[in-house]
């Protein structure tokens, strides 16, 4: 019989093993292989660098400016894309015409616009934000349209024949009917936006976590780059745990949109 305490602690300990193995291997690596010191700094160096970055406030500043930009772009992009997507998709003909274009633009959205963004806005935060809004917008638009399209035609006809007006249709049919896809769209657009953000900061940024890393490569600052990679992983895990899981629980599961899970 295992106690509740053991059941809570055991998986954590078990899951910590591979991280421990990596750290030990990393710690032993300089003794086992020959390579230039800049390629893989020691664990101590990386920790020291992390301490420096935290103490100087550089890390916090970069993370906050990145997150602020991401959230702003996420809100703006979705606020435009979701209503527009619903309006476009309400007419079957219009949505058939728009869909191929939406697919195409969604495929080129984001980082491919980087050179144009630089030409238009110059290197810096405006160009970065433009790229993130761009990728959030197109991904969300595509998901909204295909979400509305996936609502069975029978339901439309039923509501129309009972005399539902457009606002009622939106409230009672489209929003609940497309909810799964809308949420999936929010999540996908966040994932894509986050990728574009890091990518854009790497090539055309002037501050933020991506810029911190790319700037470091110029001075062979592998320790800073590794710190950045770890921070980026932790940030995304936090997003997932504290933002998306609760939303998913509150909406999809409660409304019974998921079948037998």
């Amino acid at each position: 019989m295992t106690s509740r305490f053991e059941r809570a602690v055991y998986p954590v300990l078990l899951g910590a093993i591979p991280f421990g193995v990596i750290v030990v291997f990393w710690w032993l690596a300089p003794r086992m292989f020959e390579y230039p010191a800049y390629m893989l700094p020691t664990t101590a160096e990386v920790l020291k660098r992390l301490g420096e970055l935290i103490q100087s406030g550089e890390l916090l500043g970069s993370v906050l400016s990145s997150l602020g930009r991401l959230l702003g772009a996420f809100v703006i992009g979705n606020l435009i894309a979701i209503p527009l997507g619903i309006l476009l998709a309400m007419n079957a003909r219009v949505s058939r015409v728009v869909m191929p274009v939406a697919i195409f633009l969604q495929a080129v959205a984001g980082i491919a616009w980087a050179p144009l963004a630089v030409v238009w806005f110059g290197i810096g935060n405006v160009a970065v934000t433009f790229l993130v809004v761009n990728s959030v917008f197109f991904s969300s638009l595509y998901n909204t349209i295909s979400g509305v399209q996936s609502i069975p035609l029978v339901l439309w006809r039923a509501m129309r024949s009972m005399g539902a007006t457009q606002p009622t249709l939106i409230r009672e049919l489209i929003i609940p009917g497309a909810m799964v896809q809308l949420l999936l769209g929010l999540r996908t657009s966040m994932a894509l936006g986050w990728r574009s953000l890091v990518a854009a900061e790497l090539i055309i940024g002037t501050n933020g976590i991506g810029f911190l890393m790319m700037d470091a490569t110029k001075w062979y600052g592998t320790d800073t780059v590794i710190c950045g990679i770890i921070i980026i992983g932790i940030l995304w895990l936090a997003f997932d745990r504290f933002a998306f899981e609760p939303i998913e629980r509150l909406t999809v599961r409660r409304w019974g949109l998921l079948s037998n899970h």
Partner: protein
Amino acid sequence: MNRLLRAKADIQAKRVDAGPGTRWMTPIWRRLESVGGFIVVIAVWQLAQQASGLPSTLFPSSLDALHALVDLYQVGILYEYTLLSLSHYLLGLGLGAGIGLALGLLISSNRRVSDILMPLVNFTYAIVEVAWIPLLILWWGYSPATIVVAVAYVVASPLVHNIVTGVRSIPPVYIRAVRALGGDRRVVLTEVILPAIVPSLFNGLRVGAGFGFRALIFSEMISQSEGIGYLIFTSAASQQTARTVAGMIVMGALWLFLDRMYLRPLERMSTYRWGLSSEAEK
């Protein structure tokens, strides 16, 4: 995420296709309809360019882009770079899919092993691939190797994640039943695990292929050696903005081609053959 995707598949399986109101349309008319959107976009683009009066270096018109496209084709750059991009992508995709599949099956082959490795898998999945690029550049320099490794990583990481979560979601009863009826580990693998993870496998592959394509363009831009991404990036730097737009169009067309020709048929084939998108789940 997987639950959401499954719910979406459920909904789409029940989707009712074009109603009787559209039956009179000929297929040709349908095709024109899907091209219509592009024609509108191009017309608006052309008008906006003329109305704005901005120079072509800042806002190239659709004609400029077309000229650039023809020019790139005649010089031979277009063909060469498309081929290079495609080969980076396919190499990375193959490498990533192979490694991802092997690693995923290995991790999920044993409950204990997957308990141990799951947090690590989740963590690497959370690190966006572009974050590795500065490190790859430090290790391999600005070279095609960086591009291929970046694409392979992007493809492998969601694949491993999906396979492991797919295997974990198999009700243990099925495995026990097969074991009780005398099946050994190999039978469990071929009769229970492999069929059960097909949807998550293709899902992972699709997600990975999409993100991989972005990673391809981005790492080509940043590693500054060759390919469509490089073309897009350097053209803008040298004031040839029309070439940038032409490159973006080629990139979009390339992705649509890959998506239509390979990914969707593959997905459809696999899910239909295994009867996964039918009512079997109910």
